[in-house]
């Protein structure tokens, strides 16, 4: 199966391990992720002001490029997925705006490409039961907290990936890899997102609440599909340790890293050493590396 693939800025720089583990795992499962030959930044936000069409030009271009090379586009990053999926819907359904945007890009694009998240492909193309059978090394005894965040799920009417209150997709994936999946209250709470830039204490508070909830449920690691969530949850743990008495640090992993390990892929390129909270001792204790 061949799918066009949009890595996005962060996966090409700060989250290379996310990209590498995702690409390798997909390949091992027979999904060939082919990077778009030409792409630009999606803008990292879906513009909420209705008069800000300019911000839609960037994602429109990406979608247009995808249409030239195929009819599917896969993203790994939750935010890129969110922006592309919503932009695509807007181009399909809001005629006025489509016409204006088409004038900007001087080409005709009508929202016909289908946008996927890799999780969706795993659920629908492979299937978690099938995936479970293809696991080489079951992640037995690893207790993980699947953290969905915001933009992967909301708004449901536009994204439609999973129930925004009781999502299953990441839980089911991790369970199929043999993990012990813990239930925790903050799996869809916000980490603070871009508030990191201007209100670092707020971000720290929000992220701490998520980690605290995961730890209280007995998790040994938190799993995410968003580089911004990952940053907020991982980078600030040093500060948290200083700020909240009794806080224990907890590794934060991309779901693709665990997928790759479970599929028995050599993890050298997975960027496991790049995290602020080193997950390797935990993984090693479960016989994984």
């Amino acid at each position, binding site marked *: 199966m061949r799918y066009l693939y949009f890595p996005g800025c*962060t996966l090409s720089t700060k*989250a290379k391990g996310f990209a590498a583990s995702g690409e390798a795992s997909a390949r091992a499962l027979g999904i060939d992720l082919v990077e778009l030959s030409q792409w630009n*930044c999606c803008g990292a936000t879906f513009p*909420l*002001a209705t008069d800000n069409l300019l911000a839609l030009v960037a994602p429109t271009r990406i979608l247009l490029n995808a249409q030239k090379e195929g009819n599917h586009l896969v993203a790994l990053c939750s935010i890129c997925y969110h922006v592309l999926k919503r932009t695509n819907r807007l181009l399909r359904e809001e005629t006025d705006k489509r016409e204006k945007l088409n004038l900007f890009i001087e080409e005709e694009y009508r929202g016909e490409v289908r946008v996927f998240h890799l999780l969706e492909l795993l659920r629908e193309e492979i299937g978690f039961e099938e995936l479970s059978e293809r696991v080489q090394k079951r992640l037995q005894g690893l207790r993980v907290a699947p953290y969905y965040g915001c933009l992967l799920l909301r708004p449901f009417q536009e994204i439609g990936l999973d129930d925004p209150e009781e999502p299953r997709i990441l839980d089911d994936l991790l369970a199929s890899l043999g993990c012990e999946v813990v239930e925790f209250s903050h799996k869809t709470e916000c980490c603070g*997102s*871009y508030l990191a*830039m201007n209100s*670092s204490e707020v971000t720290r508070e929000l992220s701490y609440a998520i980690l605290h909830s995961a730890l209280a449920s007995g998790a040994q690691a938190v799993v995410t599909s968003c580089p911004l969530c990952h940053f907020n949850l991982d980078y600030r743990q040093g500060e948290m340790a200083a700020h909240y008495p009794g806080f224990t640090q907890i590794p934060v992993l991309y779901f693709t890293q665990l997928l790759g390990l479970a599929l028995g892929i050599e993890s050298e390129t997975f960027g496991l050493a790049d995290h602020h909270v080193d997950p390797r001792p935990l993984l090693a204790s479960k016989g994984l590396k």
Partner: protein
Amino acid sequence: MRVRLSIRETRGEFVKRVEEISGQEILACNQCGKCSAGCPAAMAMDLLPSQVLRLVQLGLEEALTSETIWLCASCLTCLSRCPKGVDLPRIMEALRQLVLRKEGDRLELSALPADFLSEAPQLAIIAGSRKYLS
């Protein structure tokens, strides 16, 4: 202090601009407060999200001076649970835009710690710029 309400404010330019930019009918909100109840960042806000929207319903521009609009992370929790389908994140965005378009940037990138900038993912910097720069 008693606030004078009149048609000049309740149907004034401010309300009209917020409705235009957000694409929302602000009077569709019946102030049930579910947004405030679930807002993850509310603990740091000076006004609850529902109160900011209330000020807009009354046509009071002091909504623009609330810290709340800068602490909204556009996480869409409120929208996903709103019984009336009011897209509050869009209203917050409209309020931010009104301030940014008039007063300029809220963020100086160069003032951020170098360590932070080198560690932060591109996403954060781009999104932050979109939200805090005019």
